[in-house]
């Protein structure tokens, strides 16, 4: 793909980058929404330094809220989020953060082509790479239309490409493959593999994990962030009700403690195609 860094070049860049604060540091983050009893995010902690992690969890588990907190779009009840060492609440002009969340691109109603020009100005980076990718992904027709006139899949892909298109150092992706066809999903995965940015990717799709075995893996359940595991180990992870001796970790759900163990346990994690039903399966 044009303009994409090769894996070797990416490694070389990472090795040459001086050690600094983590790209993303989440410490005991709790997010609470008015009128809701349960916390949307409950005491979550995570550190991301020049690596890539995927957060897997059912709908409503708090994945998107975690990402929005990192982007400064929701206010934490307690805890903190830092991006490149800067507290998100007071961060200003921290360049190099990309996301596919559509709402951050709704500064005004303009066609995608003009949005790219605007973003070029705001990011101080050329939009040539995104324009080339749009062509490669056969999305050139979107340039003359505003985001809200695109199909759900097109809008998602445009957001995905904007997220990685302006030389980001940190990429935060929320369900990047929803409504995206298989071929383009593969292309985008290739693109993510080649980027040297730190990546946090939310998904509820387990099948994705086999394609990114080297990535870190967190589970998100009832607002809790559980991990860190390795995405490639998904076939070896099991969940069981109760506190299992020798478990990798144990967390508390509204129906009691749940253990995550390696190679043995009540239910193989890979067999839980939809984590929403996890509680029913292990009961």
């Amino acid at each position, binding site marked *: 793909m044009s303009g994409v860094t090769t894996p070797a070049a990416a490694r070389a860049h990472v090795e040459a980058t001086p050690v600094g604060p983590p790209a993303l540091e989440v410490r005991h983050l709790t997010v609470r929404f008015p009128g809701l009893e349960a916390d949307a995010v409950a005491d979550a902690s995570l550190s991301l330094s020049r690596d890539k992690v995927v957060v897997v969890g059912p709908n409503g588990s708090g994945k998107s809220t975690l990402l*929005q907190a990192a*982007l*400064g*779009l*929701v*206010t934490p009840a307690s805890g903190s989020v830092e*991006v490149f060492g800067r507290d*998100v609440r007071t*961060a*200003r*002009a*921290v*360049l190099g*953060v990309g*996301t596919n*969340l559509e*709402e*951050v*691109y*709704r*500064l*005004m*109603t*303009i066609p995608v082509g*003009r949005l790219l*020009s*605007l*973003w*070029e*100005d*705001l*990011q*101080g980076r050329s939009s040539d790479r995104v324009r080339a990718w749009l062509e490669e992904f056969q999305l050139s027709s979107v340039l003359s239309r505003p985001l809200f006139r695109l199909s759900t899949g097109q809008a998602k892909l445009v957001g995905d490409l904007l997220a990685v298109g302006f030389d980001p150092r940190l990429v935060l992706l929320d369900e990047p493959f929803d409504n995206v066809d298989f071929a383009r999903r593969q292309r985008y995965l290739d693109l993510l593999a080649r980027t040297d940015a730190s990546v946090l990717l939310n998904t509820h799709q387990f099948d994705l994990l086999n394609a990114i075995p080297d990535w870190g893996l967190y589970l998100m359940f009832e607002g809790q962030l559980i991990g860190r595991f390795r995405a490639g180990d998904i076939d070896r992870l099991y969940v069981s009700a109760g506190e299992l001796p020798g478990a990798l970790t144990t967390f508390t759900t509204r129906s009691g403690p749940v253990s995550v163990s390696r190679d043995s346990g009540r239910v193989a994690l890979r067999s839980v195609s939809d984590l929403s039903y996890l509680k029913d399966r292990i009961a």
Partner: protein
Amino acid sequence: MSLALPYARATLTNRSLWFWGVVFMAFWFVLGAYVFSGGLGATRAAETGYTSAWFAVIAVFSLTTLSMGIASSMTYGTSALAFGFRYTRLTPGRYALSLLAAAAVMGLVLGVVMLTLVAGVFSLRFGTALLPADPAAVVGASLLAGAFMMGLATVLVLVVVNHLGLRNLSFVEFLPLVLSYLFGFSQLFLALPAWFLYLCPWNDMESLLYEAYSGSPATQVLTRGGSASLAWPLSVAGLAGWVLVLVGVSTVLLGRIRAVSILEGRQV
């Protein structure tokens, strides 16, 4: 690419702003010229003063409509702003200036149209050319008035977004217009103290626009020729002070903008 340009383009092509800012105001001019002008003394001075007062009041109404229309559009992009201030080169000050610039461009265009309308309608009514005495001063006063209204509208919308909740937007949206009616009409008929007229931004706008159109100093009661004259430098100072305060407050509020869903504003 500056933000001001796309904002200016968006406002210039906004049909709603054109309707409420021009067409609806033209309706008021027609009323002023043909319905409310009975009993007016048939002197050149009376006709000029009357025309200028109508221009001043209606121009303020028009700018109010324009500013609230532009500022309200911020509610669709609160997430973009919250993200933009943190993770792009966009700054609250730059954004506030972009809104001001967009309002200035639209204000200028509206101003020219309004001047043409007033001059045309009232000249036709009174059978004599009632052209603005100082078009450059009209433009200057319109720009300053536009900056004030834009600053006020921005502050109001941000208070709603950050503190009151979007459901209150439809209520707050009308406040500037209500205040424009209140203060705009009060100077036409009531003898308000001079210090109040200098401190009140609506009266500053009205006085400046009146003087620019008529070429005579605005008076404490615009429809009463014998009342005390107002000094335009003090009106400019009063209005400019308000603009500075509002731009400062809006910049601070923008820096703290809360990302909210536009659906929070749904009334039913």
